């Protein structure tokens, strides 16, 4: 094998030019991303972030765990929850993804005996495959280098907003306005809906609330036709998957854990679609009856039903604490009805000051 030799050019000059272009390119993109609304408050939310939180549960820190799809990810404030109850829940919700597989994994973990708050967003809840699949397996098999890489990323994310990664030059090109040959694609999707802080605490991205055009685009995605090949479930199929869910819930409760289902507000026409695909009697009511778990449905509560969404599906940042306080209060009351208390799960019940729901603040503009 021949020894390699470097091409005979002025490598120092080439390196200087390359570095100048890198600095200029990265700076320009960083400025553009900040102008688009990104900030260094957002610490990112990839598979490794989720895996890190999952390992906390496996390591026995799961006194209170939130699983669900985007609504509990955006609407619940784990830090506020922690201030109220003394235990900050671990956030394991993931956008567009059913929590059922995570519940099954927690049910199979004999060490998990905590409070499990399950977000019920009808459409993703019933899906077998969502935006993120095999999250538990991926977390368990996550190689060491990804874990260490996340530590480096954590530091960089505090300096560079563009590291958010949801808007790359590629995704920017994909959103160029040209005649489209398909009904679905990146071109009709907003590129970002959530801002994520420490411990994957999510909240709706401010731009969704402040930019009317962007808000309209975000609203439109809920009404897109389903992906090709996806068919609505029949009542029998719904019952089958909820029966399996009931077994998992029973296992958690049998060893002293508790499960509470939480449904968050949505608005027409998305709400109409949810009601049509998963009628309450067939899905929610059956699930609560079959699991015997506590259920908080937003339509049953005067405070929650007054909340308005930003883009049909998620609450504003201002209403996030209202929602959080009210849910804590309702969970405490539901458990009390069953002769249990949050305190029995190692969680402090809400004090009157912290737990009082504030008035809804905002919603769609």
């Amino acid at each position, binding site marked *: 094998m021949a020894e390699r030799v470097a*091409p005979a050019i002025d490598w*120092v000059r080439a390196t200087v030019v390359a570095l100048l*272009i*890198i600095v200029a390119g990265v700076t320009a993109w960083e400025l553009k991303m900040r102008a688009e609304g990104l900030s260094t408050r957002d610490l990112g939310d990839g*598979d490794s972030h989720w895996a890190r939180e999952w390992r906390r549960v496996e390591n026995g820190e799961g006194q209170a765990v939130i699983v669900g799809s985007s609504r509990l990810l955006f609407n619940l404030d784990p830090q506020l929850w922690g201030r109220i109850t003394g235990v900050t829940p671990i956030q394991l919700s993931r956008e567009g993804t059913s929590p059922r597989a995570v519940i099954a994994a927690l049910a199979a973990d004999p060490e998990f005996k905590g409070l499990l708050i399950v977000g019920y967003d009808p459409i993703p809840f019933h899906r077998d495959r969502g935006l993120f699949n095999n999250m538990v397996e991926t977390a368990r098999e996550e190689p*060491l*280098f990804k874990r*260490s890489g996340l530590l480096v990323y954590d530091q960089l994310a505090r300096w560079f907003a563009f590291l958010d990664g949801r808007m790359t030059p590629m995704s920017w090109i994909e959103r160029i306005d040209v005649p489209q040959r398909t009904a679905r694609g990146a071109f009709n999707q907003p590129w970002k809906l959530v801002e994520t802080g420490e411990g994957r605490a999510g909240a709706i991205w401010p731009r969704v609330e402040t930019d009317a055009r962007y808000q309209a685009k975000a609203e439109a995605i809920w009404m897109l036709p389903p992906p090709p090949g996806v068919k609505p479930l029949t009542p029998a199929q719904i019952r089958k998957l909820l029966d399996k869910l009931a077994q998992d819930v029973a296992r958690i409760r049998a060893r002293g854990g508790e499960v509470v289902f939480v449904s968050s507000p949505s608005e027409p026409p998305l709400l109409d679609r949810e009601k049509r695909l998963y009628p309450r009697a067939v899905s929610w009511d059956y699930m609560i009856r079959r699991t015997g778990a506590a259920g908080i449905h937003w339509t049953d509560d005067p405070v929650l039903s007054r909340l308005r969404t930003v883009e049909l599906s998620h609450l504003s940042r201002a209403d996030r604490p209202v929602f959080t306080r009210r849910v804590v209060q309702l969970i405490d009351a539901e458990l009390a009805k069953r002769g249990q208390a949050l305190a029995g799960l190692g969680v402090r019940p809400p004090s009157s000051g912290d737990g009082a729901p504030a008035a809804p603040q905002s919603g769609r503009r």
Partner: protein
Amino acid sequence: LVFNSLTFIVFFVIVVAFHYAPFSWRAKKFNLLIFSYIFYAAWNPPFILLLWASTVVDWWMAKLMYREERPRQRKHLLWVSLALNLGMLSYFKYGEFALENFQALMSAIGVAYAPPEWNIVLPIGISFYTFVTLSYTLDVYLKRAKPGDSFLDFALFVTYFPHLVAGPIVRPIDLLPQFATPRVASRPLFLWGLALIVLGLFNKVVVADAILAPVSEDVFGAAMPLPLIDAWAGVIAFSGQIFADFAGYSTCAIGVSLCLGFSLPVNFRYPYAAIGFSDFWRRWHISLSTWLRDYLYIPLGGNRDGRWRTYRNLMLTMLLGGLWHGANWTFVVWGGLHGLYLSVERFLRERYGLKGEPRGLAAKLLLALVTYLLVCLTWVFFRAQDFGSAGKLLRDMAGLSAGAAPIIATVPLALTLVTMTAMLAVHWYMRNRELEDEVARRPAWLVGGVLGLMATAVILVQGEGSAFIYFQF
């Protein structure tokens, strides 16, 4: 550890710092060995034991073989090495596959057999380092080479992190002599190494992962019928993805190694400019194709025993080459198709007395295009999960799914078209050229400018450090 990860940047800085620190040459090699184990352990630490077992056993078998003159005893020693290396490979990679097929066979003759659950994780890169260590013992057995004098050098040859998990599959002659004397890279060589890392990462992160992977994943993952355009776009995108992914890794490996002062062999030579399939295999995964040629095809008899035996040897070599890529019959079919192509090409050359390449540019281009399209057909089997999916996609590509709804949006389709046209044009332009020569002919500011743009694209596109496709093999 993957090259396109934040951890690797930190790792590489530390490795370079140690390598250029004032240690003795022996200490530097020891450092590289330890860092190589860390590189491997960053995936799954326990699998280091397999690497150690392979290293120690092959070191001693080669030593004993060299001292042993009696053919029968030498063969026994070779069998120990083969049993360990191929045994580990078979257990981890083909165990489940063998059980599934045994179950299917039993079922076919009416015997109900339920195999035990097989939850074995495949050690990363096992196919690569198995072939590296086997080349050492086989060379000593075949008396092509003497065993090394230093266990440290041999352990480093097996474990050297740039090639460890996805090649190039190095031979003892490639690396062992380089470990004998102190080496560091000169400043130009170091910077050229960095340039190759940037080029490799651009291929992997931008071309393979960001541009082409989404299209090929959508098409190969589609259960419903697809229009002809979408089907072909997905397959062509995969042809580019797998090249950019794997050649990108090899380029990074060569660059990383060069920064430390060591040369690794070339693994890809613009394969989509190949005219014919023997030309393709001189350009695609060269370190594997030459390994299969030297340790399988030639020992089987090569082309020395007549036409039919040559075809048989070609088919056997390519079928096993297919199986090397993965425990699935689809990979065997992929290899079988390449074996068939090679045999037909050989037959046509002999039948019509064709030698070398055609003279005219149009004929060359036409043959290169035919070669590329036939290679694309083999990628269908390589990438599809099963024969059902492959068959469906082939029907789509034949235009038999009239009225199917498109799934690739306009911009990704256009990006695929532009990227693949550019890739094929670059391959054609470079088919008889060397990258080093081309770079040397350009002004420094242009080289720096292109590298700067590539590096910027890599940084902005980022990704989550997805694994290289060939890691799974």
